[in-house]
């Protein structure tokens, strides 16, 4: 059955067609292959915007749904559709993919250009599918399939330790994924033989508290590795540092959101009682992650690793908002997912620009870059400011919502987590100071300023960061109803704040 235009399928199909197009280009015409990839990703972006416009914020929770039998023997359906959260994340994906394609223009080595861009498009298709699937089995299949293109992207096109990083990434993810497979199977039998997410949420699932805890952990560990939450994060710095710039943006900005998305989509509504029991421990992990990630970011000498560790800290914030079980926290976390993609994306991109110019990712090799390349310097500064959540930039809104949402239910966790903001200022500003200010270093004098392609890469990202910082309401309007119904099974109503607050027009 199809309700409304099958947007999710169409969105997934466009990059797939683009992939075929890229492969069909004769192998000596690299530029054409790149153009096809860019065209396909832009077309996906346009289609996703049309879908977003048609999304009715007051309508059903899941819209543009399709539901067909896929593997009857397992009770598996091809069921897709989006709610507000999924819509926001799909938009984030479709906006970032053309950016990534453009940023990777000169990334692939001679002779394998087609492969690189084909893999990028394959990743986009799979990620859209992951966010859009309403069948647990379909979600799982795509969740695992997602690893393969990224694995090849890191392993074939990455830095010197790419092979180690790619294998570590794959094995970590597979280990978590296989445990989740057990939970998925158990969920099927516990949920009266269905993988249909809507049926499972609507009450098909009747399991005891202990069973809930076991299944919750099966899902949680896979998502915590993917997100990544401390202490499951150790693959991320390696993978992100070795990945080509564009792939790092895709990996940390988009792909890892599947983990936090999974918390919201599965862990909370399907296993509410387990979520309530385990929340304090998970919040503990989040707070440790926030501080640990930030402290390690301060200590890094490699810029890409610094960004990766800062992401560990940010993922701690996102999970904090999710497991606070308040609408504010949940909405903040969802908004944070989107904002983090752009903010970290911007950081990875400017670091990539710097690294290509200098041929090194080490902070010590830089200094005074702003003197010779003022626009580049400005972009580094802006990206760093968004990482430390400067008011007026998008990240501030989400971080504030998360902390405020957490404060109402878990005061001390919020208080300690706030220290993370201070530490963020340290690593972000110190990075700016060492890289673009100070005396001009040898090797930096010859830096040229932002090129035209680079400007096209970074401009949309910055525009989104500023726009969502000033006026996040449209996105919050989309997110809020879905977050409410996601959190409802865990907590029927938000605790009344002792001091009433109204934020971002969200209420």
């Amino acid at each position, binding site marked *: 059955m199809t309700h409304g235009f099958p947007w999710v399928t169409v969105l997934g199909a466009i990059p797939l067609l683009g992939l075929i197009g890229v492969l069909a280009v004769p192998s000596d015409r690299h530029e054409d292959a790149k153009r096809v990839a860019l065209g396909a990703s832009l077309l996906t972006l346009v289609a996703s915007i049309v879908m977003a416009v048609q999304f009715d914020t007051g309508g059903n929770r899941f819209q543009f749904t399709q539901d067909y039998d*896929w*593997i*009857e*023997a*397992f009770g598996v359906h091809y069921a897709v559709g989006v709610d507000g959260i999924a819509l926001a994340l799909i938009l984030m994906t479709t906006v970032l993919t053309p950016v990534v394609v453009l940023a990777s223009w000169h990334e692939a080595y001679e002779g394998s250009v087609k492969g690189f861009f084909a893999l990028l498009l394959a990743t986009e298709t799979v990620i859209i599918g992951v966010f859009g699937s309403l069948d647990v089995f379909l979600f*799982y*299949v*795509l969740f*695992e*399939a997602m*690893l*393969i293109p990224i*694995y*090849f992207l890191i*392993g*074939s096109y990455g830095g010197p330790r*790419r*092979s180690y990083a*790619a*294998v570590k990434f*794959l*094995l970590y993810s*597979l*280990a978590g994924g*296989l*445990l989740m*497979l*057990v939970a998925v*199977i*158990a969920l*099927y*039998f516990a949920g009266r033989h269905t993988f249909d997410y809507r049926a499972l949420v609507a009450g098909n699932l009747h399991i005891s508290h202990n069973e809930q805890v076991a299944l919750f952990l099966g899902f949680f560990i896979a998502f915590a590795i993917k997100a990544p939450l401390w202490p499951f994060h150790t693959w991320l710095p390696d993978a992100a540092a070795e990945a080509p710039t564009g792939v790092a943006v895709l990996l940390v900005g988009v792909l890892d959101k599947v983990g936090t998305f999974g918390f919201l989509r599965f862990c909370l509504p399907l296993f509410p009682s387990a979520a309530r029991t385990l929340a304090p421990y998970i919040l503990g992990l989040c707070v440790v992650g926030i501080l640990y990630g930030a402290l390690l970011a301060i200590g890094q000498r490699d810029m890409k690793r610094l960004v990766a560790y800062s992401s560990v800290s940010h993922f701690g914030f996102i999970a904090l908002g999710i497991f606070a079980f308040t609408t504010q926290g949940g909405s903040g976390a969802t908004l944070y997912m989107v904002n983090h993609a752009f903010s970290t994306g911007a950081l990875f991109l400017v670091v990539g620009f710097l690294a290509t110019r200098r041929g090194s990712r080490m902070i010590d090799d830089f200094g005074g870059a702003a003197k010779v390349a003022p626009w580049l310097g400005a972009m580094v500064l802006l990206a760093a400011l968004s990482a430390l959540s400067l008011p007026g930039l998008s990240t501030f809104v989400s971080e504030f919502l998360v902390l405020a949402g957490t404060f109402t239910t878990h005061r001390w966790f919020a208080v300690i987590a706030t220290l993370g903001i201070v530490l963020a200022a340290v690593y972000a500003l110190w990075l700016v100071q060492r890289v673009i200010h100070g005396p001009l270093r040898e090797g930096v004098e010859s830096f040229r300023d932002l090129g035209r392609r680079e400007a096209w890469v970074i401009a949309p990202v910055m525009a989104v960061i500023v726009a969502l910082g000033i006026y996040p309401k449209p996105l919050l309007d989309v997110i809020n109803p879905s977050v409410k119904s996601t959190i409802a099974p865990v907590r029927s109503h938000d605790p009344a704040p002792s001091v009433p607050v109204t934020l971002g027009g969200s209420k």
Partner: protein
Amino acid sequence: MTALAADFTSPSIDYAGLAPVLVVGVAAIVAVLFDAFLPRRLRWNTQVVIAVLGTVGAFLAVCAVAHHRSVTAAGAVSVDGPALFLQGTIALLGLASVLLVADRTSDAGGAFAAQASAVPGSADERRLASSGALQTEIFPLLLFALSGMLLFPAANDLLMLFVALEVLSLPLYLLCGLARRRRLLSQEAAVKYFLLGAFSSAFFLYGVALLYGYSGGISLDGIRTAALEGTHNDTLLVLGLGLLAVGLLFKIGAAPFHAWIPDVYQGAPTPITAFMGSATKVAAFGALLRVFYVSFSGLGWDWRPVAWAVAILTMVVGSIFAVTQTDVKRMLAYSSVAHAGFILVGVIALNRAGLSGSLFYLLAYGLTTIGAFGILTLVRDPDGEATHLSRWAGLGRQSPLIAGTFALFLLALAGIPLTSGFTGKFAVFSAAVSGGATPLVVVGAIASAMAAFFYVRVIVMMFFAEPVVDGPVVVIPGGATAAALAVAAAVTVVLGVFPQPVLDLANHAVPFLR
């Protein structure tokens, strides 16, 4: 005496139901005759034609009698759903193996020694090798083994089981020793396989004797009814069950009876390894399934704890040892041990889903295995196949298509979604969960994660490592190998994306006919 003779009526034989076995058996005999009487230069091509016709004929016969259900030959053979499904699988795998055996483009002499009796390294051997002599006996041997395999999952009494076991094993012992390259390794493998195989047959036969003593008959169903009555001597039953299981577990390569697998798989000519790794495993699992689902299903409480231990051991041992291998062929051998463990998880489920899931897994796994070993025949250096992992470095740059196909097979073996391996794994794991064996599935998931490591390592070598200087050459596959590989790759993908028709087939195949 006369009275006895008068009482004897010859059992009715359902020739239609037995057609798949008979076709291959007849083809084998015809092949022997042709080998004896044809002039030398015509033999190879004729044999290839007979073998292909025999396997295709067997497959068509299975299709023709697909809806046939009967217990025939005085209860000795049961033509039922699982048997036919497995026979179809085995016929397909047999065909693919024949194609691999028949391909001589990568090595002018084929994968087999010119004459098995020539002493390795002797002048005799060199003379034979340069004369271009070919050993054509491999085809009848292969067909005889295949007929045994087709009979094995259909055998419905203990004697027929034993006969089929020996018919499939004896030619395999010989085939293992016939490699053209590294002949000493190959002959060692044959001797090892023969000795251990003979041991396991003895165990099996001892078990048959005890079970005969227990139930007073040889029929599998008789054992079930006797066990249900519960008035007989249980010691005989449990001992007989254990010994019978040893024989069967040896054939499927389950730990702790797996020690022969790596040596034999490595030493045997690669097309024969492919044949053993796929068709033999399917046949042996077919027999194991029948024995446990028909005779001993009521005794689940007795054997399931042991079977749990065996399955866990098999999965863990296979995965851990595979991680330490540096030879791709040996690594695939250990991986086949691990997969035997995964299929055992489905067997232990002891329900309809477990049976159909195991059937599906066997089909998916068999074809992927044939494909993987088929690729091994293509990567060569001057001494034959280059199976050391380090030699595979950078193969993905040299020939992306072959390396990509191999990567597909490896990902399927690792159980990555959208490949047949995942569907199979999901089928057996979900059956086991519904059969109350969730802890076993958790172990299976952990073992799968370990197993992923060594599959992925090969992909890393092929795609992410710099090519080695004067590395191996990837031979352009001949038509026969290419066909086998293409089918294997296509099935691997189709069963991952649209498995429904084959799952239906497997579902309709259950249950066993008693």
